């Protein structure tokens, strides 16, 4: 293994290939429940932090089209975007908090910059729940304020809410050891939106793609949503252009 790959794998968790039951019977969009097989991959232990994203900003990432999908480049140039939407908001811009206010285009550009990509939602779900069908990343215990940054009844206690450190909730640790998968911010995935899994015929490395610019899946819930979105299998989606303080991301490296 070369040094570059070793460096890339710092702060990542290598997940061996395996088979797990994707989905649940909790919501129609999580069905049908299906046995899914994934090849090995490595996934960031935490969401990409503001400190990590700053390297991209300061290296001129927003000025260099080589990192961008053509439609993403067009989007940031048309809208004069030069940094994340909450970059100067001290409720969201602390070094060890996940970067937020990033569109799917910006997440993809950062992933390209660091030689990675975004997880498929199957990879995200496997990294979260592993093989034991747990409800939440930490297990089946119902969440409290000790587990994650989330909002009971979708009504955060503070009107001007804040994000939390990716290390703030030691209990918020997944089957494979990923941190902060539930709550704080939902995380962009590579897949376009689908309203259920009927499209998946093979169950091998599933990935649902329509057009880059179509809505994309996010996973994990956020500080504005309640516990149901923090379930390992829960799904949500947004336009690729959304730069609200609901969404962050983590990256993967496919090992085959």
């Amino acid at each position, binding site marked *: 293994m070369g040094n570059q790959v070793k460096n890339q794998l710092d702060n990542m968790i290598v997940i061996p290939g395996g088979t797990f039951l994707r989905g649940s019977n909790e*919501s129609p*969009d999580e069905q049908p429940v299906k046995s899914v097989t994934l090849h090995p991959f490595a996934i960031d232990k935490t969401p990409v932090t503001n400190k990590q994203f700053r390297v991209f900003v300061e290296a001129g990432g927003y000025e260099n089209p080589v990192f961008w999908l053509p439609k993403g480049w067009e989007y940031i140039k048309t809208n004069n975007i030069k940094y994340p939407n909450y970059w100067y908001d001290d409720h969201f811009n602390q070094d060890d908090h996940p970067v937020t206010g990033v*569109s799917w285009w910006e997440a993809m550009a950062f992933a390209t910059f660091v030689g990675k990509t975004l997880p498929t939602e199957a990879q995200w779900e496997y990294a979260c729940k592993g093989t034991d069908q747990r409800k939440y990343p930490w297990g089946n215990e119902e969440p409290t304020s000790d587990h994650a940054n989330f909002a009971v009844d979708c009504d955060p206690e503070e009107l001007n809410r804040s994000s939390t450190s990716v290390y703030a909730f030691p209990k918020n640790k997944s089957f494979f050891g990923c941190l902060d998968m539930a709550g704080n911010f939902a995380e962009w995935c590579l897949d376009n939106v689908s*309203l259920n899994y009927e499209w998946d015929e093979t169950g091998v490395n599933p990935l649902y793609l329509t057009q880059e610019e179509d809505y994309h899946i996010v996973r994990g819930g956020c500080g504005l949503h309640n516990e*149901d*979105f923090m379930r390992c299998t829960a799904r949500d989606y947004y336009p690729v*252009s959304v730069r*609200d303080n*609901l969404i962050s991301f983590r990256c993967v490296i496919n090992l085959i």
Partner: protein
Amino acid sequence: MNPIVKTPNLDRKPSSLRYYQEGPPKSVDLNTWRLSVTGLVDKKLSFTYQDLLEMPQIEESRRMVCVCNWSIRRTWKGVLLSNIIEMAGVSHPEKYYLKQTSIGTKEKGVYESTIPLGDALSRRALIVHSVDGEPLPMEQGYPVRLFDFGLYGYKNVKGLAQLEVSEEYQIGEWERRAGYDINGIVRPKKYWIVDLKKWRFVEKPGEVTEF
């Protein structure tokens, strides 16, 4: 007449203040407030609050949906947008857009949102002045709020001051601020249903009528 049934679980409704970026105003003086109707109309109009109360009234239970994944069904009262557009005179409204502008505040400016006029009329959009039998609270859009119930709340302006019929589909506050869709059509997905105190999955885009 049946008494108004108050919305259940209202004490757990997500705060409206979170979704009122440019307001609410500290107060609204009904002696000076007007709802103006301008733009590509035969006749520019200006309604007082009393004018609206004297028009034919609609009171019905309909579900509003927030793009932040929650929803609430309430009893809204107001006038049909179609009555106002008819009075102003718009031929072929399906060709036009409707720009809404709020009263706003000195400090934060105004909130703008533009919607397709024909779609709003076909969905029986309302200019709402009351909810659950009471005037709209200030934080929910007093004195009036437009509601096209097929669209997310961010497309429906609180504390409404102006309606402008236009040929231009302008981006509004949340599209500019955070990249949300200009069309704002309620999407099929899972929502926290405040009045039912449980999650429901909405199967089809547009106004939620099945529960």
